[in-house]
């Protein structure tokens, strides 16, 4: 399949002066899979529907392979779209559904039959061509919708919360299947999701959106390990956020102190920064017993905390902790022995520490 590059240039959509999508610029590499991720109402669907041509932008441009398609009507765009509720035509059989796009393109009967058969094979539904959508399970309907969108060999594939209606187990296997298929066909794909796991599992690049704007664009690792804002840090997984003041600079190393008397050694603080926010992922935090010894003083990235609650989650436990000044702290730790989680008493003082490489300075709110 020919892979297309998609470019959004300062794309905006206003509904009665309210911006649903606000000045979005983005380049989507040919053959890649990009996920628009963000909370409900942040403009993901509107973005996708503008690419499809179902919503006309208030301003900005959409380019496919450098060709401006902003004003091209939907039915001439050659874009495959998967709708959240599948939108299969209830009065047509599976084969007729898949053949619809070919029919609209004036493709001859014999050729169409061959292509429909191929598409059915692709989604492993070879024996289901004669059924009606109402006779299929949710997962099967999903695959028919996918076959219908792919059979027209679209320049771009758009997926709006593609797996939202499936139950958890099926959703996870479909994520893998969909991703494998997308790789194999090499079709440029934009998907919309509010599920961070889905975005992390499926996408080459993740676009985090908030209130119609782009918040951060990057690979899963970039976004998870180096969130650009508090919003991203807490939307994708959990984060411990510390408000601190830059204390001392010592070559490459900078010390940041927080209200609780915690000092953090961090890299990458702007030269003129005074107040900064540092994020630490819960899985980086190591919890240890005090064992009666006096707590270490002035050791960076180390502090005494009090156990509020420990929740056993199988191979890990979630530790809910509280610092001296009342700030809450979360730690995820792999369980080593069978009884370790039970061994901590509520209110017990523990020592928590983490590696300095886990400290990440957040640039904006």
């Amino acid at each position, binding site marked *: 399949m020919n892979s297309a590059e998609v470019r959004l240039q300062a794309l905006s959509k206003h509904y009665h002066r309210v911006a649903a999508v606000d000045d979005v610029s983005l380049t989507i590499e040919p053959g890649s899979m990009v996920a628009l991720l963000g909370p409900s109402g942040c403009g993901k669907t509107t973005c996708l529907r503008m690419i*499809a041509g179902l919503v006309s932008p208030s301003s900005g441009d959409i380019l496919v392979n450098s060709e401006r398609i902003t004003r091209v009507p*939907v*039915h001439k*765009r050659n874009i495959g779209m998967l*709708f959240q509720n599948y*939108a299969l035509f*209830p009065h047509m059989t599976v084969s007729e559904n898949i053949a*619809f*796009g070919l029919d*609209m393109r004036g493709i001859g009967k014999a050729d169409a039959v061959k292509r429909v058969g191929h598409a059915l094979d692709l989604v492993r539904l070879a024996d289901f061509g004669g059924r009606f959508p109402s006779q299929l399970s949710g997962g099967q309907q999903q695959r028919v919708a996918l076959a219908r969108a792919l059979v027209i060999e679209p320049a771009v594939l758009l997926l709006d919360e593609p797996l939202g209606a499936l139950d958890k187990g099926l959703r996870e296997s479909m994520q893998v299947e969909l991703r494998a298929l997308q790789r194999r066909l090499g079709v440029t794909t934009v998907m919309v999701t509010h599920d961070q796991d889905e975005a992390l599992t499926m996408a080459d690049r993740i676009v985090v959106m908030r209130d119609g704007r782009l918040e951060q664009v990057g690979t899963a690792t970039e976004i998870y390990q180096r969130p650009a804002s508090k919003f991203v840090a807490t939307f994708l997984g959990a984060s411990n956020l510390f408000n601190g003041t830059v204390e001392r600079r010592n070559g490459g190393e900078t010390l940041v102190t927080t209200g609780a008397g915690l000092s953090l050694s961090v890299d990458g603080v702007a030269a003129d920064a005074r107040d900064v926010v540092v994020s630490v992922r819960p899985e980086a935090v190591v919890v240890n017993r005090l064992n009666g010894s006096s707590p270490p003083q002035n050791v960076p990235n180390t502090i005494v905390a009090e156990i509020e609650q420990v929740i056993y989650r199988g191979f890990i436990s979630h530790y809910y902790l509280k610092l001296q000044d009342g700030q809450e702290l979360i730690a995820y730790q792999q369980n080593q022995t069978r009884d370790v989680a039970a061994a901590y008493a509520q209110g017990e003082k523990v020592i928590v520490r983490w590696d300095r490489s886990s400290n990440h300075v957040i640039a904006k709110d």
Partner: protein
Amino acid sequence: MNRRLSGPGAWILYFITALLMVFILAPLAVVVAMSVSDSYFVSFPPQGFTLKWYGKILQDRDFLAALQLSGLLAFSTTMGSLLLGIPAAIALTRGRFPGQDLLKGLVLSPLIFPALVTGLALMQLLSAMGSGDARINLLIGHIVVTSPYVIRAVVTSLLLVDYNLEDAARTLGANRLKTFWRITLPQIAPGVAAGALFAFMVSFDNYPVTMWLANSEYSPVPLVLMRQLVNVFDPSVPAMSTVIIILAVVGVLILERLVGLRRAAAM
């Protein structure tokens, strides 16, 4: 709905339903019974049994002409109100324009305004416009009366169609016309059929508007019936009515066969 009613409450409900059916069907049964009465005036219960009144009306030229006129009128009215009503319903549900709600109210208005007044107004308007052909006037009048039924039925079923289906068709390469023809229309077929049936029936037995627009040359069935009723009240009147009832039932059965009216009634 697949939940079944049960218990004493259910029996009360069944009883009320049965009572209602009797209430609706009894007058029709009385009409049919009177039409076979072997007497010179309409009487109930019927005296004896005869089919001679049917023989009589089937030779009555006025009645046959009226039947033909009414059939043709109802058919043309149905076509006309579908041609106007379906696009109007689409505009009202899918379009977006200022004053849409107001217009929706206005279009549905003849259901609210008394038909007698509508008829009078139409007669004055049409004669002011110099339209002298009673058949044209009747057609226009009936379309005015029936299109709201079509619009209402089609609007109701359009609101039930998932607009994602239309969007999906468009992304697959269908323009708006093809989308309507291949996707939307099959979805709203029961609604269109219900609207068409209403239009046909309403046109076929409309009296208050017809009365103003017909003339002695072109008199549809309801007028002929009324005239007969006033002149000689013999069992040929219930016989005519029975013929109309039979035609109506046949019409409903055909439609049920074609599109499943029960689906339409679920709206």
